[in-house]
């Protein structure tokens, strides 16, 4: 997993409340493999980005040339609400985003983002609205998200503090996911396993009988 420290990148304002995980990753993509070169980048907000004929909607913000390299989305309230589908965070990642800044996020979605190295930051609604205003005023302008200092630096230079649990912060800074954390205890797991298998040798394995 890619560590997250300080990110300065183009941010796109996405003024659209309650974008649920079903919009982030439409259901029809949920039966699809995710492989390099065939990832969920295309699926991300597909029905908002494209019309019924598959043509990009010119009036949708992410289709504007200024936001082609956006790595940050300034989202609206409850981004990522709805079903717990884990592919939604993959869609965000595969589209090329590294951070989301918004008033609120779906809880499970937010956890899934962090698991994949995406920082989803909650700021007050008025702060986000002001951020949108500045981003709209200068399309393609960059903002900075400083995780060690826990601040978002707006285009006007104003610094906005955000909260994040120390554990999540550390995982993002180190770029470690849940498996990395667990495998730090690998020796303990192996000892436990050995003892358990010795004590209960009858425990089944799925070796053909």
């Amino acid at each position: 997993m890619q560590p997250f420290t300080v990110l300065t990148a183009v941010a796109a304002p996405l003024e659209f409340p309650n974008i649920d995980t079903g919009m982030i990753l439409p259901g029809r993509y949920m039966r699809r493999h995710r492989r390099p070169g065939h990832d969920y980048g295309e699926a991300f907000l597909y029905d908002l980005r494209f019309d019924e004929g598959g043509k990009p909607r010119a009036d949708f913000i992410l289709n504007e040339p200024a936001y082609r390299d956006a790595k940050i989305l300034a989202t609206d309230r409850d981004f990522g609400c709805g079903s717990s589908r884990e592919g939604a965070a993959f869609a965000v990642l595969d589209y090329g985003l590294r951070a989301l800044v918004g008033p609120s996020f779906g809880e499970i979605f937010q956890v899934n983002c962090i698991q994949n190295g995406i920082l989803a930051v909650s700021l007050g609604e008025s702060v986000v609205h002001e951020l949108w205003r500045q981003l709209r005023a200068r399309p393609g302008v960059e903002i900075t998200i400083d995780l060690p200092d826990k601040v978002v630096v707006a285009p006007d230079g104003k610094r906005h503090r955000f909260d994040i649990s120390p554990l999540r912060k550390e995982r993002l800074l180190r770029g470690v996911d849940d498996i990395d954390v667990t495998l730090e205890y690998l020796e303990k797991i192996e000892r436990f396993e050995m003892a358990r298998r010795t004590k209960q040798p009858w425990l089944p394995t799925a070796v053909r009988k």
Partner: protein
Amino acid sequence: MRKARTLFEKIWSEHEIILSPQGETLLYVDFNLINEGQSFLAFDQLRLEGRQSRRPEQHLAVTDHYLPTINRNLGTAGMPNAEIRRVVEMLDENSRDFGLPHIGWFDSDQGIAHVIAPELGFAQPGMLITCNDSHTATNGACGALAAPIGGGNQLRHVIATQTVWLKKPKTMRISIDGRLPEAVTAKDVILSIIHQIGVGGATGYAVEYTGSAIQAMSMEGRLTICNMSIEAGARIGMVGPDDTTYQFLSKRRYAPVGEHWETAMAYWKGLPSDADTHFDRELQLDAARLAPMVTWGTSPEDSSPVDGIVPDPSRVGDQDRRRHIERALEYMKLVPATPLEQIKIDRVFIGSCTNSRIEDLRAAADVLRGRRVTVPGIVSPGSSAVKRQAEAEGLDRIFVDAGLEWRDSGCSMCNGSNGELVSPGERCASTTNRNYEGRQGRGALTHIMSPAMVAAAAVAGHLADVRRLK
């Protein structure tokens, strides 16, 4: 003296490796089941990360959700939907690439994961079992701690580490004492429990089912009860091992044998909850007062004894509940105060991890013997072994002679992942576990009940009391 402990606490503590400062426990996973579901996400991610399975032989991949229950001999040609076919193929590839044992669709052991794990003896007392499926608690009927995990990250974590991080739930004991009246089954017991405590009633608890009615119940019945723990909000449901458990296990292919059996028995006998144990929550049910149940709404708690009527939302005080009932009746196209037995049905489904074991098929066949159904329907045995057993007993003939289709094994019309759906607006009497809007297909109207009650409805053409079937 050692503090008295519950069955759940004993098994949980046996599997604790680490307790995190955030209050989650790293637990050792003895055995993990994998279905097609979203598991390809886990495998895709593991591939991208270059990770492998730590203990492949402690997993069993089972193809159950996306398999057709018809035309299997045609192979993939029998699967017209390319997306569904692809999901089935992905589990074939993923289990092969990661070296995981796999029961695929032409395997003589093929069946629904939660039917075959107990059937083959993979689910044993004292084990910690996980599966990327919400009905994993089914296996708890064997005295195991069986918990659902997410099909993406959590499954990926179990494959890579053979461990899982879980937050310890509180404990709840549900005691069902007394004798169940005629035609009242395990399904009616669990539907009554969910009706009483609601779909969130056991959220945050590991439930132990106990009492004389459970003790007198077969393993099949216990599996049905534990299966629907999640519909009461509990991720874990279990029954303490006893002679019924041991007898069931003794015939299973993967159960311990010889000297191991003796040692295992000695260990298992120490597992049941200690006599004076404290549970965080208690619920008692009088078995003698239970009746055959049917659901009328779009939540598993929306049920009633079959001689009841469709509720009138205007008489419900709680505002949220009233709104739910209004919406449910609109979706279900039902009018308040209609006697439930007047609700006409269009088809039936007998199957799913809830009610597809041999005892369930016998109960349905007993009702159908010498009778004809008035609506179409399918019967899908829970496993290929159940299918063989049923055919040896001649049950397949009874179903076919009555006018139902005798199919292969799989999750099938329970949620229609395999494309076997209830049509929009069609009303189905079903032995399954969930009656959510769209669960059996878009616009499908589902009524849940026991296998015998579904059989009775199939004969009558409407919801019917199996005790009074002509």
